[in-house]
């Protein structure tokens, strides 16, 4: 089962001939992902890692039946790539690209309103349903995959921090149903709440890990949803409790009291408090997520 991606996922790679696109196409193919097409304008007819390249998305979809797109296009062209995929009504679009201007994302998100299209990201590591398919950039080196099929769902605003925590889960024998990063940018396509709702509905997911960070109010909204609508246990880790207030910590998502508001909702302490009050288990450091999950599930699950 899992959520969003599984063995029926047919992937189109936008920006397949670029450095990142071709590298990760190879990685995904090695993992077993069904990559059916690539797109790079002007390079139609070529192949990359055996995958046919098309000039434009709508042609690629028509020829191959791709139902998921992953975007590795550079930041200045990435919004156009998302719009092209959305215009072609690809139901699931995953944008890896980091550094897309915020006004571009305002335009994109408005375009997505009311369209039967879901965007994950941008500035995210993608989605993996371990053992079935990987549509992303998470490390899955053969023989030492950090992932393992199982029943823990994981959703994160972060990239590498996710790997850290997934690895700890796997080391403890806790497999995952689906792991996804929703992206660290100020404006993203899919929220914590939407993802938690999918995990709550997914019979294959028994418990959920939520990885937040400072900035914005996404964790507070997630907390409200956990309190009101979730019956499955949630373990949460929020990065940045030692971050000094008022300074940007890396990408745009990590700003204390972001959004110009007067409140302190962006602070890690407030987020942690909201999640704790909503009934989530709080991990103090990344590896503790796996320890707590093992405690909750009572045994290795998966």
């Amino acid at each position, binding site marked *: 089962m899992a959520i969003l991606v599984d063995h029926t996922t047919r992937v189109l790679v936008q920006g397949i001939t670029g450095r990142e696109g071709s590298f990760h196409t190879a990685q995904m193919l090695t993992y077993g992902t069904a990559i059916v097409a690539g797109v790079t304008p002007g390079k139609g007819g070529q192949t990359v890692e055996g995958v046919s390249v098309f000039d434009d998305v709508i042609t690629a979809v028509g020829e191959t039946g791709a139902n998921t797109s992953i975007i590795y296009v550079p930041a200045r062209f990435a919004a156009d790539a998302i719009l092209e995929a959305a215009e072609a009504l690809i139901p699931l679009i995953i944008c890896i690209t980091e550094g897309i201007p915020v*006004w571009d994302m*305002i335009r994109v998100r408005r375009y997505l309103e009311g369209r039967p299209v879901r965007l994950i990201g941008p500035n995210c590591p993608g989605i993996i349903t371990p053992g079935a398919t990987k549509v*992303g950039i998470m490390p899955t080196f053969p023989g030492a995959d950090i992932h393992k099929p199982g029943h823990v769902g994981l959703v994160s605003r972060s990239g590498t921090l996710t790997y850290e925590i997934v690895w700890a889960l796997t080391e403890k024998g806790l497999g995952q149903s689906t792991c996804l990063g929703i992206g660290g940018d100020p404006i993203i396509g899919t929220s914590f709440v939407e993802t938690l709702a999918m995990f709550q509905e997914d019979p294959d997911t028994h418990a959920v890990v939520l990885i937040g960070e400072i900035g914005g109010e996404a964790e507070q909204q997630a907390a409200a949803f956990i309190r009101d609508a979730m019956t499955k246990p949630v373990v949460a880790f929020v990065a940045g409790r030692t971050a000094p207030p008022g300074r940007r910590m890396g990408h745009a998502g990590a700003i204390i009291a972001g959004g110009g508001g007067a409140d302190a909702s962006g602070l890690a302490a407030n987020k942690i408090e909201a999640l704790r009050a909503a009934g989530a288990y709080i991990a103090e450091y990344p590896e503790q997520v796996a320890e707590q999950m093992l405690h909750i599930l009572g045994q290795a699950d998966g």
Partner: protein
Amino acid sequence: MNLHEYQSKELFAAEGIAVPDGAVAETPGEARAIAQRLGGAAVVKAQVLTGGRGKAGGIVVAGDPEEAAAVAERLLGSTIRDLPAERVLVEAAAQIAQELYVALIVDREVGRVALIVSSEGGVDIEETARDHPDRVHTLHIDPYLGLRPFYGVRAAAAMGLDSGLWSDLASLLANLYTLAQRYDATLTEINPLIVTAEGKLQALDAKVTIDDSALFRQRTLRPDLDSEPTDTEESTAEARARQMGISYIKLDGEIGCMVNGAGLAMATMDVIKHVGGEPANFLDIGGGARRDRVATALEIILSDPHVRVVLVNIFGGITRCDEVARGIVEALDHLGQTSARRSVPIVVRLVGTNHEEGQRILQQADLPAATTLSEGARMAVELASGGGRS
């Protein structure tokens, strides 16, 4: 990137938003000349990127050109809230009939720009929002529509503005939105927007923040993008890092960190604290960092004399561990030739894409390796407390 008031006002004027007559001065003589042109009396405003300049003494009214020069003399080179004032803006004193507040801010939760207006201008909007929430009005602008006149009318009505000024306000707000979009501004704020004694709208102050991700297409705003950064609140090392695509913030501890990913970087700091250490910095080398960026990052960390040990924590996804390892070795070679800081110990924790090749490179260079983040953090804390500074 924050723009100075005088830079913001240049953009305003070009977009048809009225600002007071005035000019920027870098010397007392220039300030005197500007005040003379303005007819004598003038307001001298230190150009520093901080709020509360007025309270901190950065805004001074001068009665005549000589006084303007004297004020400029005093402000130039002084620091306002720890920031050096390298320029002053000399402006005609405004006759204020009413002070309003307007701002356009990207609202990340809604994914749209919020128009925030208040009939209470010239004061801290956050205080107004807390004490009189009914006096602050927020309208989200549909990006398909842009800031059409009806939003302006709605804002004017909400502020209780005299109806004779409605269409002027609607035009001003439309221009402000156009400006924000044209220059990729995540914040454009006018506080106060005044109604002059003659009944005209005028931007008495101006604050514009540009989206750092859009600087590639905003080079007119940033002639210094390829040279040394100035005019920002960040330190030289932070600015140098940013030019390389690295996020670096200096802190007060002794354990330098180099991490890929902002979330993991923060978590690494959290773990260092958890095991009893103090991080010397936040540093995210960004996604897909190549070896030159890794080398620069290491040099920046080691340029901080308080750093006693460096913890490198890399979990490779889009970043490849072999590139990181080569960058570390290169940087150490380079530093070994040019500086005495080679002796600072480095703990490396490297997993993920191409990690086998990366670990092989590190082993050849004889660098201590950790398997988990907690282990790495503990090793670093031990090395820091146990000395290791030669």
